[in-house]
């Protein structure tokens, strides 16, 4: 019999708040963190809005580790420490060789890239900062989390653009199911509010000028944000044996690829991932009460996602509560699935579906119940979380009450 994988701690940081409780409180209230980007030099950029962590919390990370981290790693470490503290796991008490970390990263350390190009090309410096390589690499966040928490089991980064965090959860679930680890810190992080990254996204013409309005007929695109989310995953037996409080379960994982186009999504790919996830979790469509949509707020994504959900769920699609919390925390790329994990876990625990904020007009192509603007009370037995990505890499997770 395969191991059940449960969640015993969650942590997060994004524009909505600097811990998971604050993030959930904002989601319950339908408050959007999207606004003018401050604290970052935007130069001549047209895009001026995002969801930013305005001030970091007191984190107590020692200076020696701090100087070696780009912002995306720092956010991951802050969220991981919170999740670990809630889980009450102590390296030393638990076998640290049986504890690992998988951290999803979509864009990596562009703060360091930007600083160095500007220093070398514009300011005439002749060498790059000595930490450039270890700061920039996409695997840095996973390594830094392992160092901060003393995790010595399977540790690696997971880059798959906007579905990175869900793939990181999937990889962590596998480590536990395969018996390679008893506990895994898993989640995602990104800090893309950097001139060079915003400039590149601007070129794609998919950014909304004002705010993100998923599933609303007048939606104009996505908004980028920064943040991180992490969860402590454990085998059910391990959590029970140490008397940990179990917050929920990752009951299933469904993965697929479009194998079609680097940016344009298909309906079949997401549909297959949703179906695979339900099958892996042993859930029927009617067992699911909440779907946290990928819901980026672009014309194409929301329409195609709606079609995929209808095909996978059949008639039950109209009885599901759907929402896109990206309307509140924005699209935090590698962190998105991890912040949406917080939404799913808390929706199950509190019987409350967080809303799709900023919604204004019905779109006949997006005709599911998208929980517009106001949270809805309803018992949530199981929740699915969709993540799709450039590259056509789809990853869907099923969360269930234990």
């Amino acid at each position, binding site marked *: 019999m395969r191991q059940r994988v449960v969640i015993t701690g969650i942590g997060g940081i994004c524009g909505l708040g600097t811990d998971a409780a604050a993030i959930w409180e904002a989601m319950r209230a339908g408050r959007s963190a999207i606004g003018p980007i401050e604290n970052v030099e935007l130069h001549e950029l047209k895009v001026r809005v995002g969801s930013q962590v305005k001030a970091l919390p007191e984190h107590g990370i020692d200076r020696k580790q701090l*100087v070696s981290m780009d912002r995306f790693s720092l956010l991951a470490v802050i969220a991981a420490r919170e999740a670990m503290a809630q889980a009450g796991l102590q390296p030393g008490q638990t076998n640290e060789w049986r504890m690992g970390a998988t951290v999803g990263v979509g864009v990596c350390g562009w703060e360091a890239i930007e600083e160095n190009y500007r220093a070398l090309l514009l300011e005439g410096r002749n*060498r790059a900062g*000595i*930490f450039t390589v270890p700061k920039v690499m996409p695997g840095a966040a996973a390594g830094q989390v392992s160092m901060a928490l003393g995790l010595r089991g399977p540790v690696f980064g997971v880059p798959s653009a906007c579905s990175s965090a869900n793939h990181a959860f999937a990889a962590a679930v596998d480590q536990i199911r395969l018996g390679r680890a008893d506990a895994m810190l898993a989640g995602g992080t990104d800090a893309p509010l950097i001139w060079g990254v915003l400039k590149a996204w601007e070129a794609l013409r998919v950014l909304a000028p004002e705010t993100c309005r998923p599933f609303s007929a007048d939606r104009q695109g996505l908004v980028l944000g920064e943040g991180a989310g992490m969860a402590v995953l454990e085998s059910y037996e391990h959590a029970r044996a140490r008397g940990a409080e179990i917050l929920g379960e990752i009951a299933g994982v469904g993965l697929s690829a479009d194998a079609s186009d680097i940016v344009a999504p298909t309906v079949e790919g997401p549909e297959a991932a949703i179906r695979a996830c339900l099958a892996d979790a042993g859930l029927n469509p009617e067992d699911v009460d909440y779907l946290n949509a990928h819901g980026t707020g672009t014309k194409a994504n929301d329409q195609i996602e709606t079609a995929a959900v209808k095909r996978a769920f059949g008639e039950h699609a109209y009885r599901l509560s759907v929402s896109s919390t990206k309307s509140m925390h924005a699209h935090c790329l590698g962190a998105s699935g991890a912040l949406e994990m917080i939404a799913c876990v808390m929706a199950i625990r509190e019987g409350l579906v967080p809303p799709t904020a900023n919604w204004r007009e019905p779109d006949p192509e997006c005709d599911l119940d998208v929980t517009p603007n106001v949270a809805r009370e309803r018992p949530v037995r199981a929740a699915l979380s969709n993540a799709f990505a450039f590259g056509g890499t789809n990853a869907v997770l099923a969360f269930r009450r234990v």
Partner: protein
Amino acid sequence: MADELARQIIDNIKAHAEPGGEEITTNTELTALGIHSLELTEIIFDLEEAYGIEIEMNTVDAWSNLKNVGDMVEAVRGLIAAKKA
């Protein structure tokens, strides 16, 4: 023997160290500084511009040979002398 070069290196180290720590002298062990080894290497490289020297030092070799701040000062002094010669 806190000469000008030693004073400058110690000042550079202080700018990177945790404020309010113990006083840094040429006898301070590098591992006691609480500074990442890569950052210490960068402090040496920062002297390249100040003294117009090229420091050809492999990071790994540097750290296997240098034990305290004084060793760091003498290594740089050697490079400056070699340049003058």
